[in-house]
């Protein structure tokens, strides 16, 4: 499922934002950002709820002249995730829990299923900054420029680090498949 990023339809200077539409289009990206960060659907739902409710409560404080809606929302999301880490860091391990395999899964699906688990585990083993880049790019669906603004680094730095990370993940996936 590739991201369509509906929020790009909004101009940063647009005054009357349709918050219902923003909710509808942001939630999948938010949920997937947290899913890439935590590897856990339930936690991703909880953190998405916290973020959406916090953004919704503060929507009158949003300033379109300072940031796009998605930068604003993902700024809040990153703070929510940081709070989650502070509370749970000491209790969590870097390993992603194993999903239970459905015995009815046919061979083709099982291959896909195993590849997903492997990718999830490999992402969880990346350094913190690379995990964040991967989650913002492939989970949140932000482009390199938006990620650069959010992380206060250059766009080229984002591109280089992502490219290096994806290549290394691909090689590890290929090695495992051989």
């Amino acid at each position, binding site marked *: 499922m590739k991201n369509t990023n509906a929020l790009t339809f909004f101009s940063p200077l647009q005054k009357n934002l349709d918050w219902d539409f923003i909710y509808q289009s942001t939630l999948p990206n938010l949920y997937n950002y947290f*899913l890439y960060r935590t590897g856990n659907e339930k936690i991703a739902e909880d953190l998405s709820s916290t973020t959406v409710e916090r953004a919704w409560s503060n929507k009158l404080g949003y300033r379109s002249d300072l940031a796009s809606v998605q930068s604003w929302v993902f*700024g809040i999301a990153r703070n929510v995730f940081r709070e989650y880490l502070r509370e749970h860091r000491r209790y969590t391990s870097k390993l992603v829990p194993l999903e239970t395999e459905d015995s009815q899964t046919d061979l083709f699906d099982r291959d896909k299923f195993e590849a997903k688990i492997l990718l*999830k585990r490999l992402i969880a083993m990346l350094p913190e900054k690379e995990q964040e880049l991967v989650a913002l790019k492939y989970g949140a669906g932000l482009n390199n420029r938006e990620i650069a603004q959010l992380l206060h680094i250059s766009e080229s730095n984002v591109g280089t680090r992502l490219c290096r990370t994806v290549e290394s993940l691909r090689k590890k996936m290929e090695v495992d498949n051989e």
Partner: protein
Amino acid sequence: MNDNFMYSLRQHPNKNFSTHLKNRLEELNQRQAPKPGLRRARLAFGFSMVLVLVVISMVLAVPSARAKLQDLVITIGDQGFLISKEHPLTDQETTIQPVAIPIEQAAENGVILPAYIPEGFDVEQDQYLFYRVEDSSEGKGDWAEVTWVNPGNGNIAMIVSDSASIMVVGTETLEEISLNGMYAAGLYKGGWNNDSFAWDPTIPFYSLVFVKDGKSINFTGPDPQQLILMAESLNP
């Protein structure tokens, strides 16, 4: 770069979850809509309570020293931090007596208050303190300090200054965070011990420092999450 496989973990949120969340937002809307004066009422209630005090260190680095140590200055957003082992106070230090001003006049004096105040915290004595630097030009260097107190649970302070100054901190655990996705802010724990002149990382206070709309803002308190929420609720 073929990165299609990286999207393979994406999935749609559960429909029940998104419907449930949408309903909660509708409830939030209903609670917020009919009460335009709620924020003012909450503040007014807060202003009627009494308080205690908090100590904060916000220091202007001496220009010559700043030049020497420029390579140790970290900039987060528009805020500079000087990582140093040396206590920032100098021989030229002077004591400034603050003027207490009713909190109701904060906005007209350019001191914006956070819309979010953690439960149980109230503005100390319904007033804020204004520190005027006599020899400053055009009021640059003046600062205002608001303190919220919650007996038994520590205090939270906010210092607002018209001019961005370099914060001297003795810790390398300075963390960069984003406020509302719009402002970068520095967060750190601890403070200077003015008796030993050493940095004390065990002081149970966090500082959140950032520059917004040309003003340098420093929140200090025991809970970093509360500071972040307060900072994110600072609206012009």
